[in-house]
């Protein structure tokens, strides 16, 4: 066992590796011969791809079309928050080929050296991107990521149960008017940063007193909140479990096609912008397939199929050109410019900050 003394200083990897070898005495050399070789494609990689994605984030036929075009079958797993994605990969890639982190997490993955640099020659369809998405601050020169969607957090609501348009974070964070019918997205960063936004502060470099103020506000508000959800706010809204919910624009736009009583607004205080990005994690078993898949998603026609289903705004000019009017002029998907001007991207501000946010949220949940 580990003696709990200061004399015991060692890098954890060498220590644990030694311990492991001593105790288990096991080696996988015998099993290496069993390494999986299913049907192999022309690039020497197995005809398979593990995609780790957000829920409701591909077109109805996207994966089937990719299989028809390349013979590669895609196995999709879902995550609900960026933190979950990061945690799953931080201790070694368990076999994913393509992941979809948001902007500030692209930074975080890069700092942790968990991303494989992209071979841009294998992604000719990047020429389809809108100019605004070609050289973002979180990934200068697009060396590690390709944009898949951009999105904005706002308020989804049921028109018949809400008075007028709830165009302020107040109705979610700081009011008992919709007591017991409020749903809040449980991602720590979003809860703190949007709280700061409500108090008129930027979502970046939030001063400590403001964080405390935000925590106190959430604690005050908690008795009125029905549920802290894991990105299934649109389902809760659709099933009548809540009437007003913090969610992404695309998710609400999706369910609005099923229920005309639903609507979405970006509050007047402004909100957080995200750019969900396609990346290849280090240790991806099938990097060439991953490049092909990313290139496939950036194709105009594929993109149109995706955005028609997921109703998220696209960073892809070729796809946008193929989209119908009711997508291009949809104020839920593309909120008005004066509101968008008040929205901003968040930054990765270091590990201590991440812990502070998490602990603040634990405090809110525990209160």
């Amino acid at each position, binding site marked *: *066992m*580990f*003696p*709990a*003394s*200061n*004399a*015991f*200083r*060692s*890098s*954890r990897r060498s*220590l*644990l590796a030694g*311990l492991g070898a001593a*105790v*288990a005495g096991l080696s996988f050399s015998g099993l290496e011969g069993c390494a999986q070789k299913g049907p192999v494609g022309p690039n020497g990689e197995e005809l398979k791809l593990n995609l780790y994605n957000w829920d409701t984030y591909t077109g109805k036929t996207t994966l089937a079309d990719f299989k028809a075009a390349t013979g590669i079958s895609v196995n999709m797993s879902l995550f609900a*928050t960026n*933190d*979950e994605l*990061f*945690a*799953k990969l*931080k*201790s070694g890639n368990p076999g994913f080929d393509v992941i979809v982190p948001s902007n500030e997490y692209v930074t*975080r993955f890069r*700092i*942790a*050296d*968990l991303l494989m640099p992209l071979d841009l020659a294998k992604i000719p369809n990047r020429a389809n991107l809108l100019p605004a998405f070609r050289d973002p601050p979180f990934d200068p020169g697009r060396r590690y990521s390709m944009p898949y969607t951009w999105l904005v957090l706002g308020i989804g609501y049921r028109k018949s149960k809400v008075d007028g348009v709830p165009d302020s974070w107040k109705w979610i964070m700081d009011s008992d008017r919709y007591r*017991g019918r409020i749903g809040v997205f449980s991602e*720590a960063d979003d809860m703190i940063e949007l709280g700061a936004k409500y108090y008129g502060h930027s979502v970046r470099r939030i001063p400590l007193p403001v964080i405390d103020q935000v925590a106190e506000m959430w604690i005050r508000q*908690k008795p009125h*909140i*029905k*549920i*802290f959800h894991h990105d299934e706010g649109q389902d809760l809204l659709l*099933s*009548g*479990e809540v009437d007003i919910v913090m969610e992404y624009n695309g998710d609400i736009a999706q369910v609005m096609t099923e229920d005309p009583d639903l609507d979405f607004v970006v509050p007047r205080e402004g909100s957080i912008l995200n750019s969900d990005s396609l990346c290849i994690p280090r240790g991806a078993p099938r990097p060439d397939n991953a490049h092909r898949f990313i290139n496939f998603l950036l194709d105009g026609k594929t993109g149109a199929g995706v955005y028609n289903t997921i109703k998220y705004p696209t960073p892809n000019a070729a796809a946008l050109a193929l989209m119908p009017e009711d997508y291009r002029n949809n104020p839920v998907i593309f909120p008005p410019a004066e509101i968008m001007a008040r929205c901003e991207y968040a930054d990765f501000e270091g*590990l201590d900050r*991440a*812990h502070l946010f*998490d*602990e603040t949220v*634990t*405090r809110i*949940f*525990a*209160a």
Partner: protein
Amino acid sequence: MDESWKKAKGVFAALGAPPVLWLLAFFLVPLAIIWGYSFGENKSLTEIAVDGTFRNYLHAVRPLYLGIILKSFWFAALTTLFCLVVGFPVAIAITFASDKAKSWLLLLIMLPFWTNLLIRTYALMAVLRTEGYINFTLAFLWNGVSHLTALFGHPLGPFQPLELLHNNFAVVFGLVYVQLPFMVLPLYAALDRLDRSLLEASLDLGAGHFTTFRRVVVPLAMPGIVSGILVTLIPSVGAYLTPDLLGGPSSQMIANVIERQFKTANDWPFGAALSFLLMYMTFLAIAVQAIVSRNRRGRER
């Protein structure tokens, strides 16, 4: 047989080596690592150094986390209490049933235990939801009554669904639901060993059923009650799935916090310290039980 291991060293080694090595390599070593991590700290986004710091434990015993642990124990205690109250009559019924009825009843109680925990929790969600089966049934009854009263000119007004899911009630309800068989079985095992003539004597001597229960059955079944409490309490304190799926804004239990340290917050050393804190408390509970039962045995002798 209880022979000394020296008499048959070959047999002893052949029997002992596989299970003991397994226990060591695939159970004690993983626990030891977590224990080691609980004295470590994050060096970067991916590196942890085990340097013997007590920081994590100091962090874990702050009021915030102690409060969550306390709340977990409170939920677990409520669960155990309800299981005991609900389960005792069931155990009595099984104990004093005929042989045939007994095996059927046992099966009836144990069958849900053999069904997947996640599925049982999911079934509860469908029952408790705002638009779930309970509210649906209540709305049906309410509307029926409302029709009747409308005949006399007093309709009841629209039905207000009960808020049953996503709150602390749902968590305790769900925990009782999944833990009940664990309480009934040890109770039954203890009651079954009970000397019935003592009960009959008590009843013959004029004590009522309730008095007999209180003065004879409960003291005699105490070991079973204690082990039932323990097997219900320990898993309930560490429950993860039930609060996660049925709970509301204030239903966070300690297992959810531990899970977040590993799966989202990226603070393994702190998560390790929290889980070991939970482990120490479990050991404490078991030690207390062992002492209690030893004292009892001492007195009986």
